[in-house]
């Protein structure tokens, strides 16, 4: 039988792994956004589509009544998700790419901690 300390260590490791993996998902879309800044429109469109998919998923997670995050954080993330998705709905030329990168970077950094 495993000791409570072992169980704690395993749970802690799993939790931090999930968080770190989520950070990697954010980093992946950020990398695509940054590297396609001067790429053909097709590559930029894919990067924006991936970013939308990530934020739509975040929106779904934080509006889930069973989500474990604090209500304040849930609300903050929900508002950010709504704003990012609204920005991505604008024509590509009107989107503030730098702002999208900055907001997404903040979340990636939070998850990397």
């Amino acid at each position, binding site marked *: 039988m495993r000791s409570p300390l072992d169980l704690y260590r395993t749970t802690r490791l799993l939790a931090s792994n*999930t968080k770190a993996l989520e950070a990697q998902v954010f980093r992946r879309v950020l990398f695509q956004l940054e590297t396609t800044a001067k790429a053909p429109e097709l590559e930029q469109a894919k990067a924006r589509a991936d970013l939308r998919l990530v934020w739509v998923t975040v929106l779904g997670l934080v509006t889930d009544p069973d989500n474990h995050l604090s209500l304040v954080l849930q609300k903050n993330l929900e508002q950010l998700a709504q704003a990012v998705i609204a920005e991505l709905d604008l024509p590509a030329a009107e989107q503030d790419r730098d702002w999208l990168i900055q907001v997404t970077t903040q*979340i990636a950094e939070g998850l990397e901690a």
Partner: protein
Amino acid sequence: MINNVTSGFIPSTPTLTPASTGASSTQANTSTTESSGKKAELEFRAGRNSAKDYSAVQQSIAKGKGAVESAQAATGDIKESLLKVREVATKLADDSLDAPEREKLQKEYSSLRSGIEKSLEGASYKGADGGKGLNLLTDKDSTKVTINSYGSQSELASSKLDKSLGLPEKIGSAAEARELLKGKEGKTSVLASAEKSVNESSERLAKEDKKLKAQLETATAVSKAASSLEAERTGGRSSARQAPDEQSRAALLKQAEESRQQLKQQAMGLGNKDQGARSLLSLFG
């Protein structure tokens, strides 16, 4: 064009409850009045409209939208290339062209044709189909997007375009260039057909994009409403939240910084371990 392939919000057909599964199929076809008093009961399928269900719907629509936007971007590139192909073919149709110039233009044509093939191939959006990729320009089959929590789906049609739009590998002579431009024996030219196909795809994709945008907005609104109802039912948080407008980017950035600090203090990530396909980790397989 998006066609609704299944019915909308409310299930239209009654289904048997598990208690009635032992009943024969003929019983299943009887009406509720006929079956009254019998053990087997007919009732409408329990609806699903929770925030959880809608997050999966939002994901499905976002994936479809990604595929449409990728195809739109590729279509834009292809349109430009076809204009250049027309210019090059027009020059090649001149019988008096000398050999070096013809060779130079032939190379330019080959390069444009390769670029078109590359754009068609590149239209595939990998976020949409578990990493396999969904190409709404060249796929042989259409795909489906879930549009509500009852599982109703819309069909996203593929243009099923040829990988090189039927353009010949090379233009060997002025006569071949003229044939490419004007067709042969009264038939529509290959180039005109290619332009027509691409223009039609472009129009179709624009309509699909508009429709998906509306569906995503609806799914998001319903998700919020479902979340609000659940919060009311469980006495949880208030859901009187409004999406911030685009004027407040600086404030939102500050809010993102606060979220970063709050996230740093969390041991867990954004999702729960049992969220499966709805989790961030399920993306981009």
